[in-house]
């Protein structure tokens, strides 16, 4: 069972941009690609904690603003030679409303 909670409208996020959602596991970065796909990942780079929400979004990837690691928004995996991954959070779109899987967030928080 998932507990989907509404976190805002897709229109609140610029294309190729991100917004932050504050949650019990810290900030979650919610991205919108040029093609209107949405993804959520923890807003903490596994390298040195850079806020990934502040990076440049290209395709379904983001480049960390601190030292330019590139992450897949879909899998959370670091790309290229860098190794690491950031946790992803499931999202769903209902019309224009973005829903986040809060149970998953709580499960991570409980870890």
């Amino acid at each position: 069972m998932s507990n989907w909670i509404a976190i805002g409208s897709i229109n609140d996020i610029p294309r190729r941009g991100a917004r932050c959602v504050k949650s019990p596991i810290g900030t979650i970065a919610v991205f919108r690609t040029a093609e209107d796909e949405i993804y959520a990942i923890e807003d903490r780079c596994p390298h040195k904690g850079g806020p990934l929400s502040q990076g440049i979004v290209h395709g379904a990837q983001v480049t960390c603003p601190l030292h330019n690691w590139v992450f897949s928004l879909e899998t959370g995996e670091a790309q290229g030679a860098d190794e690491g991954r950031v946790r992803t959070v499931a999202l769903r779109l209902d019309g224009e409303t973005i829903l986040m899987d809060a149970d998953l967030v709580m499960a991570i928080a409980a870890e």
Partner: protein
Amino acid sequence: MKQRLVVIGAGMASGRMLEHLFEADPGAFEVTLFGAEPRGNYNRIMLSPVLSGEKTYDEIVTHDADWYRDNNVNCRFGETVTAIDRKRKVVISKDGETAYDKLLIATGSAPFIIPVAGKELPGVMAFRDLDDVNNMVAAAGKPGAKAVVIGGGLLGLEAAAALRLRGMEVVVLHLMGHLMERQLDPAAGYLLQRELESRGIKVHCKAQTKAILGNDRVEAVALDDGTVYPADIVVMAVGIRPETRIATDSGLHVERGIIVSDQMVTSDPDVLAIGECVEHENVVYGLVAPLYDMAKVAARTLLKQDAAFRPVQTATQLKVTGVSVYSAGDFADAEDREEIVLRDASAGVYKRLVLKDDRLIGAVLYGETGDGSWFFDLMKRGAEISEMRDTLIFGQAYQGGAQLDPMAAVAALPDDAEICGCNGVCKSTITGAIVGKGLTSLDDVRAHTKASASCGSCTGLVEKLLASTLGDAYNPAAIQPICPCTDLGHDEVRRLIVAKGLKSIPAVMQELEWKTSCGCAKCRPALNYYLLSTWPGEYEDDNQSRFINERVHANIQKDGTYSVVPRMWGGITNPRELRAIADVADKFAIPTIKVTGGQRIDLLGVKKEDLPAVWADLNAAGMVSGAAYAKGLRTVKTCVGSDWCRFGTQDSTGLGVRIEKFMWGSWTPAKVKMAVSGCPRNCAEATCKDVGVICVDSGYEIHFAGAAGLDIKGTEVLCHAKTEDEALEIIVALTQLYREQGRYLERIYKWAKRVGSDSIKANIVEDLEKRRYYFERFVYSQKFAQVDPWEERVNGKDAHEFAAMAEFGFPQAAE
């Protein structure tokens, strides 16, 4: 006794259903067909050619009076069903009640009308049925009539193109950044826009309609950005929503559409529904192919035969004569997918295939759509394409039999194939010159044949010809591409932006054949700078292509907080500014205040959400952004000069302040730092700056191309100026030349080394006319640059950057 079947809606889905029904068992039902429109079933899809005049209404009728008569259909056209009473199994319309044993709802969709003031004015219309078309045609009859079409999707563009063919002046307003954003990426959207504009249609993207204006009929449309377009008619083509009102009122299960099973049965076993009004497995369809499948299933269900509707992939095509756009499947990009993109800008062709696990899952074709159905077929069959991957994008003709790789495809071109359109050079001329004259490089070919010497868009083809003619002997000159998204280097991209008049990032990516659809963190900021510096006032800055510091006008720190550095002109400050800085540090608990190496004060550790409020207080004390984050003018350091110093020869502080006030706000390829020292003792360290001035008794020595960061290098002397005015003009002209020639992230000393100090001196020192020209161009671009970005954001710009979208905590435990 025959069963009574009542059908609500005489549209495309119900027409097809009745055909199947009568074909399978003509006698099974006694049919009554209600239609709100005063006519029978016709091919709604073909309304666009009727609107443009390319077809007549009669040509698109699918079922005529004879057909209804032959099949004993009781036609009730022009009669809207207002209610369904499921208990008593009757439908209600203005002529009373009609009883049914089985009911089929096929009410289609209703056009979505955006809720703006003036939407009810006469002259505002949708594009859904023949009445709408007739109204538009009538309006187009008036000479010089103007139409505004709201919506740049399939429907809106078909309407716009058709109205234009009818002679109207047409403007398309589109909310999104590019046309048909649901089908096309920005680059292909740009191609389409250009094509439509060449037909005289004006396209306004990012257009937020504020109101429709007019007294007793529509007169104009006003946008949020202040633009007003006069209009005799306004066509709303922004979307549709399933027409479910009577179903909802009768208590059927309705979500976005009427919920149906695989058999097309609603929550009431005697009521079926098909078409755009239904929802099946969370999907609502808006194209006829799946609706036709539904029609077939519904007919079988009514006849108690087995059948099940399965979700289908759909393909769309824009039906504007002379423009071909085709899209099918899923073409969003995602991690586990690969794309193959082919751009042939000169031919106006763009193709993009999306692959997943060696299978084709999506395709967008622009300009050349002949292979659409072949791709669609591969997609539907889930065919393994690894064998033909390299040539897949060239289409079906390149498959089968002997396989051709891209190189072989060029080699296979006929001798008289035109390679360079600008200069009319054909293949044999080029290969002939390569062999006959022993040419070995692209430059050789350009010099001898002119091929690829103009717009350069055939460069790739010429290189392949060199490679296929010379084999291994061909070694292309190693230009460093900007990034893996392109083979072009910075200089070529800049040259082509100017030569081809490219004015947006999608335009560059399309025309210059970018290999990715959205670029990367390396090329996008570079392109944004090139466009901004090439087209001041015309190009709209793309914030999302900027590094975070430039996006939020503060420097990000290692812990995700920001630093704030206000300008202190020439390093001069006063008690009021210092007090404001102290107050702001107290008020926002800013942990560190530091004097920088650039003669100003850095407030470090500001929380992102506090930035606008911090800036508001600094603005109130007269301070603006110091652009400590910018690829732009940073600081102009000064010394105290003749005002105080016993050695000072000129007012170095005054000149520094003057330069900084003149040049702040300008974007440059990399940061630019300057300094003015009052005498050769050089206390402002002017001789290691990008541009430095050493004041002397006779005037001003202008230095440039110093470095004191990663590299250390003393400046070179550019020239001597007699007056402050002359010094300013030289420095500004020099900076402008650098703005136009420098590669993104290339500091002045590297640029000077690359182009040569002599060529810089020739432009700025020796040729006074050129110096004036560059000076004027800088002044012009400053008209659009000298806006304090902090003040803009204090006033609400980009508010989304500084606030979280949502917040949630642990759920409250239930009592």
